[in-house]
C-alpha cells in the first residue's frame, strides 16, 4: 500500500472552496509548512480552519489570512497576528474561540468515532451558552459538564518528523501537539514529513500515528521551522 504523492500541490489537488480543514501545530511549532504554501498557491477560498492558533502575519496560517482565503477560524488562541485582528474587527473573518483541551478532545473524539464529549472546561462562562450540560459525580461531588461535539473536517493536514510510504508517522518533541489527533480526525488526512522512508524501516513500537489514518503522504522540503519566542540563557 503506497500513499505517497509527489508534493504538497499533488496532495491538495482535489481541494475545493468552502471546505473545512484541520491544521496541526502549536504556534509555529509542528505546522504543515509545505501544505500551507500549496494552499496559498492554489488559492482555494472560503476555508474554515480548525487550528489551535492562527500563525503570525507572514508565516503559518497567517499566509492564508493575508490572501483572504479563510472564512472562519476555530482556535483557542489567536494573538500575535495583526492582519487577523484587522479582519476580525472589520467583520471579514469569523472566529470561534474554544478552550484548548476542548479543541484537542473534539479532534480526538472524531478520530475515535465518538460523536461528543463531556468536559468541565467553560462551565459557567460564555463558552457554555446554548450548550447541553449534564451533571456527573466526580470524587463524590456533583459536577457540571458541557457536551461538545466531535469535529467534522473534510481534510486534516498534519506535519510529522518521519513517516513511511504506508502513512505510519513519528512526531518529534513538542512538534507533536495537535498533529496526532487531527491525523485521526480528517475524512482525508494529508501528512507531510521531514523524512520519508520505505515500509519496514520504522520500528512498529515507535509509531505514534498508524498509517490507517493517513491517506496521502509526501516528503516536505525547505522547512523553515520559524521560532516565535527565542529564549536563551548565557553559558556561565
Amino acid at each position, binding site marked *: 500500500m503506497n500513499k505517497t504523492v509527489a508534493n504538497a500541490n499533488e496532495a491538495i489537488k482535489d481541494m475545493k472552496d468552502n471546505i473545512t480543514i484541520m491544521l496541526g501545530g502549536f504556534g509555529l511549532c509542528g505546522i504543515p509548512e509545505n501544505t500551507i504554501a500549496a494552499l496559498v498557491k492554489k488559492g482555494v477560498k472560503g476555508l474554515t480552519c480548525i487550528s489551535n492558533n492562527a500563525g503570525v502575519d507572514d508565516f503559518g496560517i497567517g499566509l492564508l489570512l493575508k490572501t483572504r482565503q479563510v472564512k472562519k477560524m476555530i482556535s483557542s488562541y489567536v494573538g500575535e497576528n495583526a492582519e487577523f485582528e484587522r479582519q476580525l474587527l472589520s467583520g471579514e473573518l469569523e472566529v470561534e474561540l474554544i478552550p484548548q483541551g476542548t479543541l484537542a478532545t473534539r479532534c480526538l473524539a472524531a478520530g475515535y468515532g465518538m460523536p461528543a464529549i463531556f468536559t468541565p472546561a467553560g462551565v459557567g462562562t460564555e463558552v457554555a451558552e446554548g450548550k447541553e450540560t449534564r451533571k456527573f459525580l466526580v*470524587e463524590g461531588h456533583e459536577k457540571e459538564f458541557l457536551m461538545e461535539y466531535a469535529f467534522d473536517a473534510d481534510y486534516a493536514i498534519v506535519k510529522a518528523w518521519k513517516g513511511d510510504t504506508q502513512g505510519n508517522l513519528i512526531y518529534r518533541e513538542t512538534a507533536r501537539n495537535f498533529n496526532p489527533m487531527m491525523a485521526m480526525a480528517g475524512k482525508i488526512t494529508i501528512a507531510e514529513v521531514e523524512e520519508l522512508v520505505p515500509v519496514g524501516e520504522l520500528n512498529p513500537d515507535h509509531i505514534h500515528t498508524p498509517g490507517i489514518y493517513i491517506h496521502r503522504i509526501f516528503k516536505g522540503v525547505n522547512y523553515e521551522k520559524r521560532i516565535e519566542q527565542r529564549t536563551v540563557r548565557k553559558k556561565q
Partner: protein
Amino acid sequence: MLDKVGIAKRIAREIKDGYYVNLGIGIPTLVANYIPVGINVVLQSENGLLGMGPFPYEGEEDPDLINAGKQTITTIPGSAFFDSAMSFGMIRSRKVDLTILGAMEVADNGDIANWKIPGKMVKGMGGAMDLVASAKNIIVAMQHVNKANESKLLTKCTLPLTGVHCVKKIVTELAVLDVTPQGFKLLECAPGISVEQIKNATEGRLIIEGNIPEMQIQ
C-alpha cells in the same frame, strides 16, 4: 509591597516535593526560578511536555521544543512528550497537583476572569478554561488593585469569566489570601503593608482573624 519577583518567590513556597505543576504565562513562569532547593517538581507544559527544563544555551535552540508560551526550552532527565489531548487528559483527570496562573479579577466565591476584556481584541482563552475547570489546586498570581487603584478582588467578577468556584489561593503585591466559602481569608501581609491597606484594597468579603503575620520571602 511585593514586585513580580516577590510574588513569584512567595508562590514558590507553596510548591511541595513531588508535585506536578502547570505554570501559566507571566509571573507564574517566574516561579520556576525560585523553587526551593531539595524540592523535586515536574513542570507540565500543556502543549505536550512533562519535565520542562530551563531555556537553552545560545545556539542550542530547537524549534521543535517550545513551551506553552511558545518560548524555546529544554528537557530534563525524565522528561516525556505527549500530544495535546493527553496533555489536557492529565489536567482534566486531576493528575496535575498545582496550577499557577494570572488573573484580571477574582471573586470571593473563587470565580476567575483572565481571558477577555469587552471592547478589546480577544486573543482567546488558550488552555486557561480547561486548567481552571479541572485543577485540584489553583493559586492565582495577580495585582490586588488596577492602575486606577480599584480592587481586583471582588464580590463578583465584572469581566467575562474563565471559570467558576475554582481559585483556592491568591498571592498579590499586598497579601496572601485563601478563598473560603465565607470569602477571602487574609493569611499574610506583604512586608510593610498593614491590614488596613489590604482592607481598603479588597472589595470582596474579607475575613481577618487574629494577628496576621508578615510574609516570609527569601
